[in-house]
């Protein structure tokens, strides 16, 4: 009995010790001086200088740690156009283009191009002469030519007639007549990484593609487009596609680029990139290696950030997680910026009553955008007045004339206005609070959303609740993303969630208008296409937009024509008029609703890196949780930080510490 009670006491004591240890350990955080302490102690200047190798304390191996994804071995291969590619993050460290542009700001920098000049019909690019591929072969103008002859689906080829290479280091792009306006030409060229198709490796496929393109005749039908202004017949298109498919399966086993880092090793979870010793800009490379980890789980990613295992991390987590990460790791600093995209909802005009403008407007007046933003992304920004303009809202005042903005319908929440519009089109509200259509039926609508997109799903749920509370029963249907987009394009939902007013590419209003009128928004809204009869008399969808609407001046415009002529309009004022008109048309026709412009961010680990951090003088004030910058220089620096770190650009501004 005594032994038993003694054992019981011992067991109880052991259990208490274990529990206590777990509690202590789980509450532990870093206790070394963090960034704020260091700045307060006057270390600002030290942080802005490269650290001599002998004094590097926290990153002696000079390794830059980031996250990324790639097909896991044995699926990994070295062709960036192969299935799965060569990886997202690492792509930018291994490959380069003639130019490099920073998304969201449209700054274009020379990269493989040393200089360039434009004439009316040509752009001549002079290459740096000391550039090598990772396998030692020289990078020449033939490689640029090879890139576009093989990758003839690249957008810029639709504006070109030919590419000449008068010598090894000169590339002459011949544009169609009329040519795109000069700023657009550079942006189009900057979309591509021309250092991805080494001619000496893919010669067989490049020469085949070139031979096939030479079989094509010049385009005579101005309503069509084709690479290098060529009329690609169905048969030729099949051969070109087959050649392309063979190219994508051709290897090599490891990527070969011209970038500052070359491929060293890959496992299922880690990729190592080694400094390329023959890189043509050796002074720009400060880290010896890039260590990329593949961590798909979000909670594991946050844990890595918290533990200081990453030097840079992309994204702004929910408020409570963000604050927790900053609290637990005092060396982290988080910067915010706007995404060039908004979370929004699109009405499917193929379904009744969404084909009725007043109905769409009525629904839009029901929505309280502040609540949608709070749930979707606390740090985003709602624009209550607009429906969907095709332009990034934070750029609206810059891209659209004030007089046009003033004439746009104001869609700020107004339930009375919503009710009034519904009554105008024959809807009635019953004593049960539910609205009935002109046939007396109570509708039940579905908002579709991809289930892996939290901002969209969460805000769509709130939108559905707001519609239902107003008296229009609506449910959210969140489906697997692998089937959502094709379902939405086929019109299976009454309303669909996706990015709207979005320009993932260059920051040009025409770029975001393309998404609205030609790409993702078009298919979800269900804009009509031009139909024609085939040889058997059957109606065939040409895929060409068939939308003619009244503009702000009362005239009817063919939207497709306006979009097509925009790149060739040389006069800036005239281009602005086109955009003014299209934005006004989009807002007035209310094809969807911009819930809020998304905000994203970037994290820096200041323990392992030093550099000229943006907003350095405000870090202490905001305790490392930096607000959206208002100063244009700071905005640029933060955009560089976010979008640049996905490229070769950023590591050159930071050094191991």
């Amino acid at each position: 009995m005594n032994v038993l009670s003694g054992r019981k006491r011992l067991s109880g004591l052991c259990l208490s010790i274990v529990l206590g240890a777990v509690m202590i350990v789980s509450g532990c955080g870093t206790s070394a001086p963090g960034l704020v302490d260091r700045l307060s102690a006057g270390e600002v200047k030290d942080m802005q200088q490269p650290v001599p190798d002998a004094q590097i304390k926290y990153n002696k191996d000079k390794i830059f740690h980031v996250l990324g994804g790639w097909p896991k071995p044995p699926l990994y291969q070295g062709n960036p156009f192969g299935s799965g590619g060569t990886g997202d993050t690492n792509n930018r460290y291994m490959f380069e283009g003639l130019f490099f542009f920073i998304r969201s700001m449209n700054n274009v920098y020379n990269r493989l191009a040393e200089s360039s000049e434009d004439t009316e019909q040509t752009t001549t690019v002079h290459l740096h002469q000391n550039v090598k591929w990772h396998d030692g072969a020289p990078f020449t103008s033939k490689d640029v030519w090879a890139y576009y002859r093989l990758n003839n689906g690249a957008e810029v080829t639709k504006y070109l007639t030919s590419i000449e290479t008068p010598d090894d280091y000169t590339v002459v792009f011949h544009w169609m007549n009329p040519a795109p306006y000069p700023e657009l030409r550079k942006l189009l060229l900057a979309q591509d990484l021309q250092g991805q198709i080494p001619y000496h490796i893919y010669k067989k496929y490049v020469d085949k593609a070139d031979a096939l393109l030479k079989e094509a005749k010049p385009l005579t039908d101005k309503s069509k487009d084709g690479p290098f202004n060529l009329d690609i017949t169905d048969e030729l298109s099949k051969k070109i596609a087959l050649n392309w498919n063979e190219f994508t399966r051709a290897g090599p086993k490891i990527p070969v680029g011209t970038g500052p880092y070359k491929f060293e090793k890959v496992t299922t979870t880690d990729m190592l990139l080694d400094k390329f010793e023959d890189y043509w800009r050796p002074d720009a490379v400060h880290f010896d290696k890039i260590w990329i980890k593949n961590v798909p789980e979000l909670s594991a990613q946050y844990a890595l950030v918290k533990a200081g295992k990453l030097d840079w991390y992309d994204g702004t987590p929910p408020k409570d997680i963000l604050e927790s990460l900053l609290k637990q790791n005092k060396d982290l600093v988080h910067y915010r910026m706007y995404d060039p995209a908004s979370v929004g909802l699109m009405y499917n005009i193929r379904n009744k009553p969404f084909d009725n403008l007043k109905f769409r407007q009525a629904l839009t007046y029901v929505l309280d955008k502040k609540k949608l933003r709070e749930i979707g992304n606390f740090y985003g920004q709602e624009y209550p007045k607009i429906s969907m303009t095709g332009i990034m809202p934070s750029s609206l005042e810059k891209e659209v004339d004030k007089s046009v903005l003033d004439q746009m319908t104001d869609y700020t929440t107004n339930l009375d206005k919503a009710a009034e519009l519904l009554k105008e089109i024959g809807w009635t509200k019953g004593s049960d609070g539910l609205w009935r259509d002109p046939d007396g039926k109570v509708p039940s609508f579905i908002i579709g959303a991809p289930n892996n997109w939290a901002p969209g799903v969460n805000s769509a749920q709130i939108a559905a609740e707001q519609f239902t509370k107003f008296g229009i029963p609506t449910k959210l249907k969140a489906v697997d993303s692998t089937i959502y987009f094709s379902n939405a394009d086929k019109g299976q939902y009454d309303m669909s969630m996706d990015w709207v007013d979005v320009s993932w590419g260059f920051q040009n209003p025409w770029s975001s208008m393309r998404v609205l009128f030609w790409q993702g928004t078009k298919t979800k809204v269900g804009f009509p296409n031009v139909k024609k009869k085939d040889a058997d008399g059957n109606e065939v969808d040409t895929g060409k937009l068939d939308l003619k609407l009244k503009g702000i001046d009362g005239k009817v415009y063919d939207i497709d024509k306006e979009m097509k002529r925009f790149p060739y309009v040389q006069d800036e004022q005239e281009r602005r008029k086109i955009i003014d008109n299209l934005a006004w048309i989009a807002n007035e026709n209310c094809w969807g609703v911009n819930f809020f412009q998304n905000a994203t961010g970037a994290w820096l680990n200041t323990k392992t890196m030093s550099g000229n951090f943006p907003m350095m003088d405000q870090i202490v004030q905001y305790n490392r949780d930096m607000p959206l910058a208002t100063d244009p220089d700071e905005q640029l620096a933060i955009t560089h930080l976010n979008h640049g770190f996905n490229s070769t650009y950023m590591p050159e501004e930071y050094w191991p510490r």
Partner: protein
Amino acid sequence: MSLKGVLKRIGVSLITVFLAMLLTFFLLRMTPGSAIDTWARDFATQRGMSLEEAYRQITAMINYNPKEPIFTQLGRYLGGLLHGNLGMSMIYQNVSVNEIIANALPWTLFVLSVSLVISFLIGINLGAMMAFKRKTVLDPIISIYAILTSSVPNFIVGILLLVIFAFQFGWFPVNGAYDPIVEPGFNLPFILNVLYHGALPILTYVITTIGTWALTMKGSAVNVLGEDYIVAASIRGVSERTLMSRYVKRNAMLPLITTLAVNFGFMLGGSPLIENVFSYPGMGYYIGQATQQRDYTLMQGLLLVTSIAVILANLASDLIYAKLDPRVKLEEG
């Protein structure tokens, strides 16, 4: 155990494999979405063409025609199977399904088999002790532990272990099967590194299954303890230790042999969750990826291998059980 009984068991297993293969084949093709849809979108963007045109070209390029009659597709698949060819991945056309499985299966088998052996051995010993010492504190403690760990999904336990031991303490790696700095091969650094990386996934499985083994063993042992031969042995003066190890454990363990095989199948099926938490390059990762991309050939191959493994494990347990317990005869006719 007669040869006829064994052959009958094998025959039934083969039929089960065939039916599992058929079911997988048809069910996969009934899932919404298709490999072509995702691929066509990427191809259309890459090649600057319309979605319809991209769809048409991809169908022409790859060896899969969604409009082909399903029984024709089945015929081709069965023909390939008879030659041991599981086909090429539809998405990664350079890589055969055989190659992907050959890379992934060893990792899954390594983690599962080590976990199973450890949890089984510890579990049956604990269970036997619990049966013998039912009136001590050991019984309720392990019972509570077993209930808790069987209620919590195993991937949650995995995440907890990751947070505590990998991120907080830094004692174990965050993910993967081995570090990129070691050279894969039959060398000590690589083997130790693999064990080091496998520690947390193995611990996850062990923690979440050990309680169940203990409880099951306890139940079985309690039944055996009531048998006449145990009472007789006890009266004869056989020591408690010998009684437990040679009389109780051996007899109580028999029903658990069958459970072992079932558990193996259960764990193999649940491996995607654990493998994704630890980014472990086993079958689970490729099942998840193939499902997302609608890579039918890869999914078929992976699910077929999983089904075969479970069926073989059950067959083995039937045969071993019959061998271990002379009272059990395999049916002959």
